[in-house]
């Protein structure tokens, strides 16, 4: 320490001036480089390729017809609703054997539920407690898709094939329609729900693998209700409905 004190004193004026000048320059100049927020000219937004398919509609209806034979399948689905900058989410994951067997976990805006129904019993888990409930009437998932033929469509687009189980094993079709008309429901006060449907069809067995629906509708005081659903079907023809271990344990405890 001592050996540098003398030379430092000798040059301290010079150093002080340099330090002061630099500090002031940094302070006044803000010392930061000029940064701008990257815009879409810097980073172009990627767009999905799609082309008009004259046979698209026929292909979709054919897939609906083929899928009608499905009785047992697994489902993974979620529905995201956007309002303001907030997302609300509802999810399900489980197995179905039509017409009335189901085992499925569910979450609605962060709260979890679980349902089990076989030919004899129906149990629902809410707030971590299994309760017997009335039988749940399951919709005819594949039969209900036949309502698609009600839709008056002008254009069906085909996107690039995607890989779900094996490379490029799924065809993807897209069309826009009014959800109320597609579902064949009576329109309440002329309400329309513009929607975009994306149907994923297995190339080999022609089953419908997934349905995506994006809809916007008007709600008083909210403006736009933007709903985005993705319903994926898998283990088609092989899935089983088995009682969850937790319910089995609960029923055993009740018998005691």
């Amino acid at each position: 320490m001592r050996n540098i004190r003398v030379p430092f004193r000798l040059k301290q004026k010079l150093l002080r001036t340099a330090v002061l000048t630099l500090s002031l320059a940094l302070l006044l100049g803000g010392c930061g480089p000029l940064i701008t927020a990257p815009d879409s000219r810097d980073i172009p937004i990627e767009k999905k390729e799609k082309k008009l398919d004259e046979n698209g509609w026929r292909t979709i209806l054919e897939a609906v017809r083929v899928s009608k034979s499905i009785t047992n399948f697994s489902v993974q689905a979620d529905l995201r609703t956007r309002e303001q900058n907030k997302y609300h989410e509802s999810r399900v994951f489980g197995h179905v054997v039509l017409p009335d067997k189901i085992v499925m976990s569910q979450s609605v805006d962060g709260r979890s539920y679980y349902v089990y129904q076989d030919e004899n019993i129906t149990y629902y888990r809410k707030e971590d407690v299994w309760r017997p409930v009335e039988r749940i009437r399951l919709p005819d998932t594949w039969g209900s898709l036949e309502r698609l033929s009600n839709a008056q469509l002008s254009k069906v687009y085909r996107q690039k094939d995607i890989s779900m189980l094996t490379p490029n094993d799924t065809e993807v079709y897209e069309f826009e329609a009014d959800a109320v008309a597609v579902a064949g429901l009576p329109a309440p006060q002329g309400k329309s729900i513009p929607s975009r449907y994306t149907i994923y069809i297995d190339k080999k067995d022609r089953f419908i693998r997934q349905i995506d629906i994006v809809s916007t509708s008007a709600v008083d005081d909210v403006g736009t209700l933007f709903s985005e659903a993705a319903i994926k079907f898998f283990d088609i023809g092989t899935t089983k409905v088995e009682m969850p271990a937790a319910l089995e344990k609960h029923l055993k405890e009740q018998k005691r």
Partner: protein
Amino acid sequence: MKKTVFTALYAVFLVAFYQLIVTPLLLDLSYIGLAILIAGTALAFFAVPRPWRRTFSLLSILILLVSYGLMHIFADYLIWKLINLPVMFLLLGWIASSYAGITWRSTLTVFTAVTVLLSVVPLPEMAFYGKLRIEHETEALDLRPIFPVYPLVNQGSTLYTLGDFRKLTDQEIKEAQIDPKERPPLVSAEKQRQQLENVDVLRFLPTEGYEKQLVSKEEMSSLPFPSFGLAGFPYYASSWTIENGAVKQHFTQADSPQTVLTSFLDPLTVTIAMDDRANRSVDTSRKNWENTFGREARPQYPGATLIGKGKFLPDGSTQLLLLGNNEIRLINEASPTDSPIATYKGSWEQPIARNLVIGDIDGDGLDEVMVNSTPAKILKLNRDRNFEQIWESGKRSFRFEFVTKQEGTNQPLIVTQDPSLIRDQETRYLTGYTWQNGELRREWRVFKSSLLFPFPVSDDTWVSGSYGRPRIIVLKPMDMSVPAILTGIYAALVLAGYGCQIVQRRERRNA
């Protein structure tokens, strides 16, 4: 004594420098930031005269270890603080004295200096001081799954939100605990449901030191219906009761979970069912609001919502910006029933859902609309009265928050939350921009994420909610630029170090 003071000051400087300069470099520039950091560290390392380099480096590592250790200890329970603090001091002090040649006195100095610094500015909040200071921070509010983000409403400088102010009795806590062996699970489940679905409405007032207060019926009825009426939207309908003069809000499921579940098995109606559920949620809440507060809450603009007022035309008149079904409508305030002055429709990829900001970004006296679609964009009304897109973000997670005046300049400040320069991810940081030559030029950035819808309550007071640990944070912008000062000190120290070494070499050569 001098050495102790220097060590203490260096400890404070290094912790602040690390938090406000080093961490932002990495967060903003990723690997490039890391390269700059390595270069900066090397520059500082070689600026230290050779005999002190080892001690200086080890002292720096000790300071950073102490700061992180203390941050974790501060967040712990008192008993753990009492146990961990001496253990950490003894352990680090022993390692420092045995292997690094740092005296116990220096370690104690570092501990004391960093403890004092973190008591004044806790490490997790230090990032704010890149531009803002925390005027006040409320205690943690309840995080309830039924509203993933809680509503934060202001009327003037009074802030309102939801939370459970009522302390649970020991009996209630016992009942809420799920232990099937000791009590019937249904009782516990019912208690749990009640806790989830019933909350107090809270008020925070600056004149009351932002102390949590319960809201009276009169106060609540002076708020517009959408303020809290949409809190449970779209899965829950709200209702209100008055208990001991205070308002309590309740949430009831608009649809049973079973109905929500089965709607997935009829894929073509899943979004229709959602629309129906959402409408019922609003309608039921509206009726409940009217019944409780005796005020009519009919929608002012059926099928739409009012985003705000603005001046979009050069004639000085005021217009209203409405949002309908994925469409912005600009209407005249004086004649709202006339056909819209201009409209702008959102697309499937970029829907518009009440995520808009109105503000004059270029200071020309006319407002622009910032649309927080993905990616975000800025619209300006052109001479032909069409909304024209003048800017679109290159990042998908860019979000506009508000536009405010800046003191001493006519350039408005555009406050956003947007991600790192390199990566495009959901972690966003509060940033201030100005509009210059068709670009958003960054004025400052606070590397603090998890902020929830910040908004200004006055020119110099901003309020923000927070994800994770819900609370209300009151912020004030600082004129002083702490990062610039720290960078200046760093540059001065480095320069002084090299200066010293040059002088030393000359002396040695001359000798």
